[in-house]
C-alpha cells in the first residue's frame, strides 16, 4: 500500500474471496426473478438475508438457509421502505448490502398512459429505489462501509420493448440515482452500482412476448444467441457486493448477452 492507495480496506492476497460470510443483506423484489435468485445466492454465500416483496406467497418458497428472514411490504410507499430498513437494523444492528430489484412492468402505448399509471410505475420502480437507498445510506455511512445495487434495464438505453415508455424512463432514473449516490457515498467507503439486465428469462422479461417472439428476439439477435437466466444476473451482483467489487462504483454493469455493445 502506498500514499496513493491509503484507505483501501481489502487484502491484495490472490486467494482473497468475496468475504460475504455474516454480511447483512436486504434484497427487494425477492419473490421472483432476479431478486429471488439474488436473495438465494447471497444466502448460499453466507449472507444473513432479509428478502422483501409485496407478494407474500412468493416469499414463502424462498431458500434463505438458516439465517434468512422475509418481510412483506409495498415499497412504492417511502414510509414502508423506512420501516423495512429499520426492521433489519433492529434485528441485525447493521446493514452491509442493499439490492434493489423490485419493479413492475405494464406495457401501455404512450397515448394511453395516464397520470395514475405514470405514478404507479414511477413510485414502484424509481421512488422505491430512492427511498430504500436513502434509508440504507444512513447506517452504511455510520459503518463506513456498504454496497448498494440498483437494478436498471437495457430499456434505460434503448427505450425498451414496445409500449414500455414509463418503464424505460424509470430505469433511466435508476442509472442517475446510482451515479449520484455513488458520488455522495464514496467518501464513506460505500459503493453504488447499477445493473442493466436484458433478455433475462423471468416473468417480467417475457411480459408481452409470445414464446416465438421471445425466442426470436433473444435467441437470434444477441451475440450469445440465448436468453439469460436470473441466476446469471445474481452472479454478477455477487461480484459487485463482495470484496471483489471494492474499486467499482458508479458503474453500470450490463448483463445482457451483448445486446447493446454500448
Amino acid at each position: 500500500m502506498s500514499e496513493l492507495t491509503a484507505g483501501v480496506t481489502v487484502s491484495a492476497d490472490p486467494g482473497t474471496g468475496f468475504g460475504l460470510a455474516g454480511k447483512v443483506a436486504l434484497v427487494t423484489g425477492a419473490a421472483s426473478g432476479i431478486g429471488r435468485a439474488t436473495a438465494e445466492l447471497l444466502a448460499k454465500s453466507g449472507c444473513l438475508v432479509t428478502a422483501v416483496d409485496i407478494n407474500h406467497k412468493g416469499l414463502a418458497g424462498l431458500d434463505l438457509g438458516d439465517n434468512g428472514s422475509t418481510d412483506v411490504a409495498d415499497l412504492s410507499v417511502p414510509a414502508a421502505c423506512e420501516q423495512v430498513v429499520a426492521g433489519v437494523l433492529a434485528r441485525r444492528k447493521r446493514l452491509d448490502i442493499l439490492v434493489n430489484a423490485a419493479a413492475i412492468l405494464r406495457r401501455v402505448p404512450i397515448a394511453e398512459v395516464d397520470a395514475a399509471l405514470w405514478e404507479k410505475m414511477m413510485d414502484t420502480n424509481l421512488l422505491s429505489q430512492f427511498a430504500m437507498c436513502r434509508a440504507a445510506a444512513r447506517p452504511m455511512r455510520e459503518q463506513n462501509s456498504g454496497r448498494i445495487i440498483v437494478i436498471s434495464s437495457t430499456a434505460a438505453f434503448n427505450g425498451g420493448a414496445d409500449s414500455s415508455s414509463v418503464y424505460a424512463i424509470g430505469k433511466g432514473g435508476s442509472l442517475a440515482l446510482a451515479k449520484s449516490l455513488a458520488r455522495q457515498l464514496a467518501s464513506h467507503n460505500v459503493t453504488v452500482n447499477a445493473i442493466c439486465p436484458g433478455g433475462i428469462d423471468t416473468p417480467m422479461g417475457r411480459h408481452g412476448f409470445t414464446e416465438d417472439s421471445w425466442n426470436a428476439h433473444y435467441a437470434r439477435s444477441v451475440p450469445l444467441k440465448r436468453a439469460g437466466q436470473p441466476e446469471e444476473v445474481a452472479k454478477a451482483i455477487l461480484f459487485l457486493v463482495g470484496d471483489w467489487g471494492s474499486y467499482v462504483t458508479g458503474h453500470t454493469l450490463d448483463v445482457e448477452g451483448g445486446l447493446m455493445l454500448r
Partner: protein
Amino acid sequence: MSPELSILGLEGRVAIVTGAASGIGKSAAEILAASGARVTACDVNADGVKATVKGFAGTGHTAEVIDLADLAACDALVKRTAKREGRLDILLNVAAVLRRIDVEQVDEAEWDRLMNVNLRSQYFLCRAAGEAMKPRKWGRIVNVSSGAGLVGGFVGATAYAITKAGIMTMTKSFAKDLGPHGITVNTLSPGAIDTPMQRTGMTKETLESARSRIPLGRMGLPAECARGAVFLASDLASYVTGHILAVDGGFLMR
C-alpha cells in the same frame, strides 16, 4: 484453493495472461492460479515473468518470454499452449506500453510501437485464441483497455489513448463474432491503478491531482483491478459479453 472461490468455475481451466511480470497482469495471473486454473504467464521481461510463475499457487503453470510486437510469436504462443494443454479456455490481454511524451514528439516509430504492442497484438491473440476455443464451445477473452480510451488519458498519452479506444471497439467486434461459439469477449477499463506503468512520467503533484479526482479518494490496487478481469473470465460473468467493465473508483461514472 479457498472454497469460496469454487463458484468461479476456474478449476482446471487453461489460461494465457500477457503482461504477467508486473502490475495488473501479474496479479490477475496469481488470482487465476489461486482459483485453480493452469496459467501460461507471458511477458517480455524474462526475469519478471519467471518470478511471477514461481510465486503461483498450485502446479502446471508455464512462463513464456515473448515480445508481442512480433505477430508470429503471438500466433505461436496460442498454438503452443493449446497443444501442450490440450485446450485453451481463457485469454487475458493485459500487456501494454506507455511512455508519456508530448504529442509533437510522437514519431512514427513511437506510434508503431504503441499500436503494435497495445492493439495489434491483442487483435491477433484474440483471433488465434478464438479459433483454439471454438471446438469446446466455451471461452473467455478479457482485453484490458483504460479509461484513457474514453476520456483521452492523463498528460502525454495521446497515442496510448488511441490504442485503448481501439481495444474497446475491437472487443465489441469479437464479441459479435465469437458469441455464437459460447465465447465471451469483454473489455476491462482500469482507472488509476497504482502500478509502475501508472507512475510512468508522473510527478508527485500530478499523481496527487489524479488521486484527488477519484470519487473513492484513492488509487486502486492492482489486485482490485485484476479481480475485475478474473470476474469476466469466470462463471460469474456467463451472460456478460461486449461489455466495458470500469474498475476505476467511480472516475468515469459510466
